[in-house]
């Protein structure tokens, strides 16, 4: 009773013998209590020690049986060879190429760190046209939301980051149900669609009812600056490279690569929307204006120091560090 097998299927610990003996039976040999007793009889061990070894052997057998049952459970990890991996034993290593912890091309670790069992990648199949309940928006639903969100008035009056007609699309995400819609199974699926309108520096929000296929709510407000789209970041990088204030950037590029910067395509950039803090008097308009801070890298190379420069997309102006 003191050592009943755990209900969880855990493998009990291996009991360390009080002294080393080369004739000690391996866990595999100790399949039954009888086998363990026979093996033990070959060496002179005190009665007390033999008893504990019998218990260890029995425990391991139970654990092994549990492990072989557990393999049928989907969560039971299996090695790439398709053979069931006994819990606690080292798994077959992934591809055998590369060393754990080493960088590999393509950003994929090529071996399981520590020889662990790699995850099972769940098959997904093709994306369905529509989701249900609280499913994420499907690619088709995102397209529908973007199409229904831009009413004719907005398409005419709004301007994108490059000055083209229409609003600059930012994000499309699943909406929360309305307060009265307590049963999400019955609530319509909606999308929150956000745009930036460079014509009047407002953030526009459109809520599309995907179930009914209609634009349900529209709102807009100034002084709101969510994260930039990739198009906005690319435009900001173009402005930075073309600006007379881009001089330090060009010098850094030359120092890093030994060649002259020919154009923005030689750089990689990530953008953060920027709202001026009370301590910023040089670009205090940022917040009312759409401003970005860029994190610029040589493509495939080092970061260049650009985070103290502000690109004002609304004014199409670059502000170097004050």
């Amino acid at each position, binding site marked *: 009773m003191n050592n009943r097998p755990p209900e969880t299927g855990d493998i009990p610990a291996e009991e360390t013998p009080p002294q080393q003996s080369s004739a000690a039976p391996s866990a595999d040999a100790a399949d039954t209590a009888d086998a363990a007793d026979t093996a033990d009889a070959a060496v002179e061990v005190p009665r007390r020690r033999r008893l504990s070894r019998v218990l260890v052997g029995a425990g391991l057998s139970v654990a092994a049986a549990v492990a072989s049952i557990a393999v049928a459970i989907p969560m039971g990890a299996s090695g790439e060879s398709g053979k069931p991996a006994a819990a606690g034993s080292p798994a077959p290593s992934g591809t055998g190429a590369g060393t754990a912890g080493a960088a590999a091309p393509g950003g994929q670790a090529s071996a399981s760190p520590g020889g662990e069992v790699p995850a099972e*990648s769940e098959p997904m199949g093709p*994306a369905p046209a529509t989701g249900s309940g609280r499913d994420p928006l*499907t690619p088709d639903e995102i397209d529908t939301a973007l199409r229904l969100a831009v009413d004719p008035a907005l398409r005419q009056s709004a301007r994108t980051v490059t000055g083209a007609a229409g609003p600059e699309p930012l994000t499309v995400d*699943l909406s929360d149900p309305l307060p009265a819609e307590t049963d999400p199974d019955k609530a319509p699926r909606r999308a929150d669609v956000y745009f930036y309108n460079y014509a009047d520096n407002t953030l526009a929000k459109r809520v599309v009812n995907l179930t009914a296929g209609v634009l349900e709510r529209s709102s807009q407000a100034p002084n709101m600056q969510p994260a930039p789209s990739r198009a906005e970041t690319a435009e900001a990088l173009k402005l930075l490279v073309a600006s007379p204030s881009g001089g330090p950037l060009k010098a850094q590029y030359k120092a890093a690569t030994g060649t002259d910067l020919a154009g923005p395509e030689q750089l990689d950039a990530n953008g953060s929307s920027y709202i001026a803090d009370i301590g910023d008097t040089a670009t205090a308009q940022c917040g009312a204006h759409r401003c970005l801070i860029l994190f610029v890298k040589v493509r495939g190379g080092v970061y260049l120091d650009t*985070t103290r420069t502000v690109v004002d997309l609304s004014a199409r102006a670059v502000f170097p560090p004050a």
Partner: protein
Amino acid sequence: MTARITARMTTRMTSRMAGRPARPAHPAPDERKIPMIRRLRRKATGAAAGLAALAMAATVLAAPAGAAAAAGKDQDRFNYCGNNAMVQETLKTGTEWRMCWRIDTKAGLVLERVGYKPKGEKYPITVLRSAQLAQLNVPYDSGEHQWNDITSYGFGGYFSHAIAKQECPGGKLKGQWIGKKEDAKKVLCVQKVDAGLAYRSQEQEWMSPDLGDLFTANGQDLVLYTISKVDWYEYVTEWRFADDGQVSARLGATGDLSPEDWTTPDKGWPIGKNATGISGNHFHNATWRVDFDIDGDGREKVEQYDTVDTGARGKRGEVYSTAKTDIAKEGSFQNANLRWWRVVSQSSKNGDGHDRSYELVQTVTNQQYAANPAQSPAVSFTQAKACEKFASFNADPECGAQDIPGYVNGETLTDPVMWVTVPFHHVPRDEDQSPMPIHWQGFDLLPRDVTAMNPLTPKGRTDHNGQVD
């Protein structure tokens, strides 16, 4: 059931009184002839039958008036998303967790309709309507830089990284569709991980060398995580669901230190040779938004508890007194010694007749960034509003207020949302290069009276509920 336990206990007591061990150390001769695998199956069947009987008994005891009518609804309680968006796993200790997940462009990993079914409960109990990161503010001590990684970048979209199979050992990778066909990005790792010792209790006669029954189990956690790379930092958004009902939120930060924040010794730490490469100190002020939905109702109340030294001295020590303060209206609060909060269901009780609740557990309380009013409170409670999503820079034209200080405007709390801020002041060290060892910050939500007993209680201890005479 009860009769069986009593009979077993009586046998145990009798044998122990006779000075013999409770069970023979060797299996009885007839048992030894049965192949191990058959013996195990028989045992498992017996255990399963016992558990089923126990579950039924617990349900009958726990069922509140009118529960039968609600049973259909309870059973359907988790059909809130399709298979691909559903995480449904049973841990080895018998507890099942279910939830819907998706990636929001701004918040990153969003969990909705989170609930669990302890092995002794007939129906799953919902815990959270939704849970997500609500801001990650990173100001540098130099005053030169301040980032808001959720609202100025986002943890979803192209910041959300695909996870390699090798990064999620023993787990499952789940994905989101990014194209029309079978083009999926595997961004969520779901793992069941060892949680170490769950409980242990061994009966013992202090004046005898013999040990009695050992009740012990190792626990298991269900872990979900995503990776978001924002410039040089890589963030891990992790949610951990324990088999005892505890929910833990953590943000991990790894990747590399900023290559553009070199400063002076009073604002950083040298990580290069000698006195060179003084890397800037900075904060990671993380805020989570947690909308409770305890047992599917959504209506909860908030209570604050403070334990104070009364100044009186008992016969053998100081006398402490614990008192409740009802938080009836929206508010922001700071930690104090021996203070904690809980969110309490207004409609659901456990089998002991106690209101089901979840308690906020914050352990680190000395890292506050006081200069940011939206994130300097330890916790805020606001009335649930769909448009109030982020702790600061909410940027929703439909919403009147755009940060927590604006959300807190005196409304009565009937459906509270909890905003938890966990700050971390990062003073770089040599070891942070490279890649930087992951550093974690987070909080726990501890079930308080969700079940009438430990949801992992083994069969031999089910009668230990309340004052045991």
